């Protein structure tokens, strides 16, 4: 899966998941979306794993600061 493809798929996961308006970009992070708190993060990751049919290793997701990092992580499993 190319990085651009991951970007597009992840964009639709985010759009389905969040109610708040946001502009999806690599720089987007929890700071930009009010409802993206630590609890929503748990569900978001469950949803990302489900839609990409992958399973991150424990601790991996903690290191992701923004959408760009998350895309890199997903790409690692989808290469």
């Amino acid at each position, binding site marked *: 899966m190319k990085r651009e493809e991951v970007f597009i798929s992840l964009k639709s996961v985010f759009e*389905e*998941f969040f*109610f708040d308006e946001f502009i999806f970009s690599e720089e987007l992070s929890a700071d930009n979306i009010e409802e993206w708190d630590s609890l929503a993060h748990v569900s978001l990751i469950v*949803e990302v794993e489900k839609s990409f049919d992958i399973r991150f290793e*424990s601790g991996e997701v*903690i290191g992701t600061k923004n959408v760009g990092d998350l895309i890199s992580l997903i790409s690692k499993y989808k290469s």
Partner: protein
Amino acid sequence: MVDLKNIKNLLKLGDIQRVESLLKELPKKDFVDKIIHLQKVINKIPSKTDSVCIGLIGGSTLYPLSEYLKAFLFREGVHVSLYCGEFSNYKQEILDTTSWLYKEKLDLLIVFPDDIINYVQPNISSEFEVVNSSLQAFVEETNLLLEHYHKEKPCSQVILLNRALITHHDFGPNIRNSSLGSYWNLSKKYNELVAQQKKSWYELVDVEFLSAKVGASNVYDSKFELETKNIYSNNFLIEIADEISFVVSSNKKPIKKVLVCDLDNTLWGGVIGDDGVEGIALDEISARGTAFKNLQRYIKSLMDLGVILAINSKNEESVAREAFETHPDMILQWDDFVSKKVNWNPKSDNIKLIAEELNLGLDSFVFIDDNLAEIEIVKRFVPEVETVTMNGDPSDFIQKLAERRFFEPKEITDEDRDKTTRYKVELKRKESKIRFTNINEYLESLLMEVDFKKFEPVFHARISQLTQKSNQFNLTTIRRSVSEIEDLANDSSIRTISTHLKDKFGDYGLVGVNILRLENDSLVIDTWLMSCRVLKRGVEDEILNKIIQIAKDNGKSRVVGVYIPTAKNVIVKDMYSHLGFTKVGDTEEQGTKYELLVEGYQDLETKINVI
């Protein structure tokens, strides 16, 4: 498919009602699949004034369980205001009467206790008694906490969760069941103690049962646990939320009291008016017939639970009644049905009439039918009635009805308890009868009864099936179609026996088939087959007594038997010798021919009572 966009748009437009009904109409599977999104939708719906106030406290993270719980309850039509306790702070919250627990007007408190593993911290070398007493202390402590709350807030309902069984961290069968250091054993023991010491004023949500239902491999997710401090996997939390929501919402719904049954293709396979009593699928031989018989057994046990049964069928009443009265495999009896509407009127009208007759509200009715059109009519004209469509594979029918959980008793009444005592007395009586020291005493204790019949039309299909399927206890293995059986039954040179056996454990139905031919001075055993379930009980001895009787009645001096070997019937190779026949030679089909003289024959003794 869930149209999330549409739901979100409707929500933005403020059409709450439409959103609510869309969510309720979603099939359960879709709802569960999209629950993460849907719970967010539900959170946006402003709470109502009549909402139920729920407190959720516990020893592990309560998110996302809390969200799933809200979502499921919403789907059940229960609006909630849900308050969550702090992570692992539930003991203090209960003990401190100034805490939020006592400020909110809670209708319900749900308690998800500490993980026993953290509390007990067992290891393999721990003494059994040490771990056991620490486990005991934990259960007592939980009870004391709940009691404290209950005294302060007697009107608030309380629900306690037990523990899923733990299959990981296993050291093999020798350790598994002997040491309480084994998590498997520990979790089992814990649940046992919780159940034993449960107080009547709280309810238990049986997480152990749920874990068995979904399989332990779906219960745990170690990464999810490490990262989110949830002891169970995300999917299992959904399962728990579903169960809690069932317990909560079923207390608020009208109790179902009546099961209204269609007949054709619902209680049996086929159409009685077309196929006749002999033609319907209801037996214990074919898979399809057994499925319907099992459904009838399930419905009978509902009746034993106190559910009222009724019939609502498009048929001629006399035809339907005849089926109940003459079909040998009918578990449900005509009189089991308190109300019977067998006519050509709309089924919705029939249900209204039944409700009037029984003086019960329509919302206490459940209707089952295989026909979608009938289900639609009932849904439209008596919407209070719950319906279950019994279409597709009949082996799923019990599941279809059971999974709706309409008839689960809410509480055990005194009468039920009396019943239990009565059962126990009954059981004791039975037990005392079961004592025996040798085979004869055992056979005697079975209280067997045999009924010999000629081939009767209702049994023709089953007799044919037995000739097609019996391989082991089958002396000649001659296969016959239903029409061949019919011809034999009407043939004046043929005598037939169908053997029916009962004992104190139940009715085995048709267990033996004999076809006998009158030939010169002999009675020739053309077919002798029996169900292997009833071997070694003396049934074959009684059959021989009967055969000799038939020979005498027809003035024959000898009985001739033939054994034709196949790959599967070795079991009866020497049967005729054992029964006292003399070998007289071989037949053309590589069989062995035996004969027995009628004169001088003494009836074989058995422990069977011939009716």
